[in-house]
């Protein structure tokens, strides 16, 4: 299994997701929608599984590989949101975003055939990154909805709050898994390297959003604008630090 086979799996998966998205937009057909989305997830998931087997380690080392998970988790988050909160438009969102990431991978794959460095050969590695990918997908969806509400005025606030809450809980879990792993691998659970510093800042920002919503439920616009800022922080944490002069050569996270 190589990157060249990606489209063989991505295309059918995208078709499933797109049909499900259209059906859910029109209303009704709930069971078919769920079935089709799951079908797409199964197809895309099997590509990841096959990559995993042929690489001999979880495909989580390069940006391209983490994007695979992002493309996988977005429809999954969409499906969960659809099932739990009955938002009809959410699958269109997740499918569109997933399409973007798959296209990036198809047309500009960052492929590295390097072996994992010893510090990454740990049982903590997969959960740490997968949980973070899930958190990125959830908060990404919340950000888009916040933009949607700011520009078009549709009230999405309950959904935004829920997604942010879920996103924050996963950010917390990912961060703490990272701390436990770092203790195991390097002897310190938190060493304030640039990635960790930005993770802390991002976590605090999302925390502020939740507390702000509780303290001032009427101040919708400032809260939504703040949420956009949170996502900027998150991007900094995810890939921005690779371009940040202050972080050059100072991070143990340079591989991601």
């Amino acid at each position, binding site marked *: 299994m190589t990157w060249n086979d990606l489209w063989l799996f991505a295309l059918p998966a995208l078709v499933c997701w797109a049909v499900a998205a259209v059906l859910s937009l029109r209303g009704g057909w709930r069971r078919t929608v769920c079935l089709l989305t799951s079908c797409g997830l199964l197809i895309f998931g099997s590509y990841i599984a096959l990559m995993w087997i042929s690489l001999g380690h979880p495909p989580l080392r390069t940006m391209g590989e983490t994007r695979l998970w992002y493309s996988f988790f977005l429809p999954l988050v969409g499906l969960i949101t659809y099932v*739990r*909160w009955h938002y009809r438009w959410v699958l269109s969102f997740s499918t569109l975003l997933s399409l973007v990431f798959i296209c990036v991978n198809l047309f500009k794959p960052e492929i590295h055939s390097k*072996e994992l*460095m*010893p*510090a990454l*050969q*740990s049982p903590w590695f997969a959960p740490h990154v997968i949980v973070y990918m899930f958190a990125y997908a959830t908060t990404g969806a919340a950000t888009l909805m916040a933009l949607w509400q700011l520009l078009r005025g549709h009230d999405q*606030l*309950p*959904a935004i*709050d*829920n997604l942010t*809450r*879920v996103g*924050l*809980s*996963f950010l*917390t*879990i990912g961060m*703490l898994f990272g*701390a*436990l792993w770092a*203790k*195991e*691998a*390097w*002897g310190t*659970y*938190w060493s*304030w390297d*640039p990635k960790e*510093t*930005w993770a*802390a*800042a991002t976590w*605090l*920002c999302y*925390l*502020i959003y939740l*507390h*702000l919503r*509780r*303290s001032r*439920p009427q101040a919708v616009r400032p809260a939504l604008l703040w949420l956009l800022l949170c996502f900027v*922080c998150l991007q*900094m944490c995810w890939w921005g*630090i690779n371009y*940040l*002069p*202050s*972080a050059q050569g*100072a991070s143990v996270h340079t591989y991601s």
Partner: protein
Amino acid sequence: MKKIWEMTEGALVCCGIVVAGLLLQLFVGPVRWDAMAWPTNIVVLAVMLLGILVMHLCRGKVRVFRWMSTLHAGIPAMLTCAMLTILMGVTRQVPQGHVPMEPIGITDMLSFWPFVLAYVWLMVLVGMVCMTRLRLPLWHNVPFLLSHLGIFIALVCGTLGNADMQTLHMVVQEGKTEWRAVDARHRVHELPVAIELHDFFIEQAPLRYMSDVTVYTKKGLVVRDTIQVNKPLSVRGWKIYQYSYDETKGAESDISIFEMVRDPWLPYVYLGIFMMLAGAVCLFRNSPKSSHKVNESKITRDDDME
């Protein structure tokens, strides 16, 4: 006179803390974390907890103490911490124990007084709000306490215990037994544990290096095991990590370098971390199912808070 303290006062207090921190930085110099070593840290912890308890008990009489457990105080405190953390993220930091690159001190943020004081203030507020939730029926407050008390325990114990953490490096030759190790300042320490290195080897294919060792303690404990990256060995409160080897010789290296870590506060930090993990799961599980319930629960919880 104004009815109660609100968010503006929260912001003002934070500004005051930053200014006070800058003055301290100017006249006292950076925070000296090594001065926090045992028993100073336990005294500081006791004073902090006692202070929180006293303020909590006086909250009926003193308005400010009551205000301290509200979001009006908490949000500006979080904001201040977030801004200083972002400042840390955009400035290049000097390695730990080094002198800052500029006169203000922001390149050594962890010893920068405004940064430290802002986090102390936030933790005091978290402690205060936990006190208000330590009441019956406790069951309703469990998710809240897990996350808030969790971060309090993890951060306070992690910070106070940092000075008690010993990180030493021990160089052992094949066939020899060693009980001395050096710290970051090249001072030699005699340890209560000794390592005998039988063999050091590198598996070329996955670039994995490991040491076959026997560890002895003063009390007569003997452990034979293999130590490799990600697979440290724990003996009597010491964690022994595979750290390095003679890199000029590569696979032929006849020495192995171990990192020896002792961290007596670790169990408490772990307690905090696992409480936070449980709190995060609660946060995920307790997300309301419909928008109607969001509003309902929000109102009741707001009453709780303030």
